[in-house]
């Protein structure tokens, strides 16, 4: 009887420790990311310091590297994506939670989730052979003809560039924003909604007053998460962004994002500065994604907590 109890004790302890090591191993892994990438960026960061991130040049001949053109490319495409995606995602989320019924709701929810399942390289393939020609032959010439005086529509219609990348990214982050918005909408207590309807509000007014108004911070969190995803997207962007390290006001212009730059140049960077600069950009991406994620999670978590008690 004594022996049995001892065995159990050891078995339990062993199990517990194995699991603990693996769970905390994740934290170790995160730290390893941080440390290793920082160490490999050191040659360039120690030379020019944080000014690396706002230096506007990338010249392998003179060995002068700065991340600004790619920060621009990343931010511009991601903002375009957000601008296009947020209204669409909210619309889809609202349709699913408020307007659609039973079977239709399930189908729609499923379709939105399937959007998330398509791999980046397939979106890139589709972007390259469907979206780009469409932009080049139809959309951009039209915009150029009628609105070409605006700086954002300046330049030759090439198809590839900020516009194409922004559109493809918008589609890719829609499921993220839509799904989280849907979760937020579902946490809103029924009382709010029924109350509004009982007072004679139209459907839209109910949505506007009870749901949207109370979900602002939740939607913000969802958007930040979507933004975080857009910032790190690599393949689809690399295939349609035009591969040009330049800052420009026009949506037609080719650009380069931080992620697509690394994908294009990392395999061949052999100069110490070149390699360190690329790694530094990767490090920047890491920091930004960690930051975006934490912020978004905290916001979303707070919103969900707010309503959980009042169900």
């Amino acid at each position, binding site marked *: 009887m004594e022996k049995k109890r001892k065995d159990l004790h050891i078995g339990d302890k062993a199990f517990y420790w194995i699991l603990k090591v693996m769970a905390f191993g994740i934290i170790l892994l995160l730290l390893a990311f941080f440390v290793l990438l920082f160490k490999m960026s050191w040659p360039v960061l120690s030379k020019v310091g944080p000014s690396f991130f706002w230096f506007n040049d990338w010249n392998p001949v003179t060995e002068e590297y700065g991340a600004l053109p790619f920060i621009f490319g990343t931010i511009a495409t991601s903002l375009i994506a957000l601008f296009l995606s947020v209204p669409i995602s909210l619309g889809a989320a609202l349709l699913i939670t408020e307007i659609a019924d039973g079977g239709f709701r399930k189908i729609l929810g499923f379709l939105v989730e399937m959007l998330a399942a398509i791999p980046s390289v397939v979106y890139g393939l589709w972007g390259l052979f469907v979206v780009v020609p469409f932009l080049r032959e139809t959309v951009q010439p039209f915009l150029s003809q009628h609105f070409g005086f605006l700086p954002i529509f300046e330049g*030759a219609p090439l198809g590839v560039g900020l516009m194409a990348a922004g559109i493809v990214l918008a589609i890719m982050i829609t499921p993220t924003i839509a799904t989280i918005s849907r979760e937020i909408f579902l946490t809103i207590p029924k009382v709010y909604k029924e109350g509004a309807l009982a007072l004679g509000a139209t459907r839209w007014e109910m949505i506007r007053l009870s749901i949207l108004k109370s979900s602002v911070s939740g939607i913000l969190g969802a958007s930040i998460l979507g933004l975080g995803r857009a910032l790190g997207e690599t393949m689809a962007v690399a295939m349609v962004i*035009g*591969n040009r390290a330049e800052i420009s006001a026009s949506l037609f212009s080719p650009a380069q994002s931080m992620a697509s730059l690394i994908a*294009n*140049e990392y395999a061949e960077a052999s100069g110490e500065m070149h390699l360190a600069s690329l790694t530094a950009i990767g490090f920047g991406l890491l920091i930004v994604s960690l930051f975006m994620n934490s912020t978004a999670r905290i916001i979303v978590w707070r919103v969900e907590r707010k309503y959980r008690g009042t169900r």
Partner: protein
Amino acid sequence: MNKFLVSFFIMVSFTAVSFVQMTNAAQLINGAGATFPYPLYSKWFSEYNKQNPNVKINYQSVGSGAGIKQLLAKTVDFGASDAPMKDDELKSAGAPVVHIPTVLGAVVVSYNIPGVSTSINLSPALVSDIFMGKIKKWNDPKIAAENAGVKFPDTAVTPVYRSDGSGTTSVFTDYLAKVSPEWSEKVGAGKAVKWPTGLGGKGNEGVAGVLKQTPGSVGYVEQVYAVTNNLPVASIKNAAGKYVQPSFESVSAAAEGALKTMPADYRVSITNAAGATSYPIAAFTYILVYKKMNATTGKDFVQFLKWSMGQGQSFAKDLAYAPLPKSLVTKVEVTISQLEF
């Protein structure tokens, strides 16, 4: 049901992993580098594998820059580059690296101009101006001046360059730096430069892809990429003042001059070569190996290199490359025999 799923899943992963153990006696040799000679190399490796089924040469066409880098990092058995390694690159290698010239090729200026399917004439000044972004439209008088009778559309000029580190870029910018002081000063030469304007494509393949799809575009690619994609090729005015199309004859003529002064390590530039029939943007392309190769792969690879100097050269012409001049082949064979493993 669950048990079935679990066991099925385990079986599938297991089978997949156990394939790992299916190592046959075949020798796998890994290489990476230039996209310039890739069509020829892939033919070579395929043919050689047919004749020697035990030897598999896995070559990834990722650009000369990557080829050199991976060789220096020793993550591949051999590299390939059209740009000879620079002195500081050779120094950082630690051990001696040997350049083996394999074939001659032409960097052509190809374009997609709506309505123009013939070869246009371009002088060095024009090429430089186009890639500098100084010529904005195809119906610019400067272009018309050298191409009487050709109807150019009012389309914007979009230069296309390599977004990755490229030997082809190195050859092209080397030529431009020679013929245009402005280019030399403002942009310079190298495997990767800061292009004044245009779009980037990854690899010769990527540039050709962009050219095919973008009206008004003009780019530089290795000849076979233009040929296989039915893209027109410009005639470039050479140092002797003649407009020359790239061909076996004009490329070989460009190499002729260099043969007399060929250095022992074969690192030369043959751009803007003298001679009435020389094509001005021609280049050797090299396979790069350490003098002391890996014991397991070295032996087989050296055999392959010998084959490339013999039978290999016969495949070059069909793919729009020029075989090495016979006198050079003799020298290279000596170099190959000096490789150790």
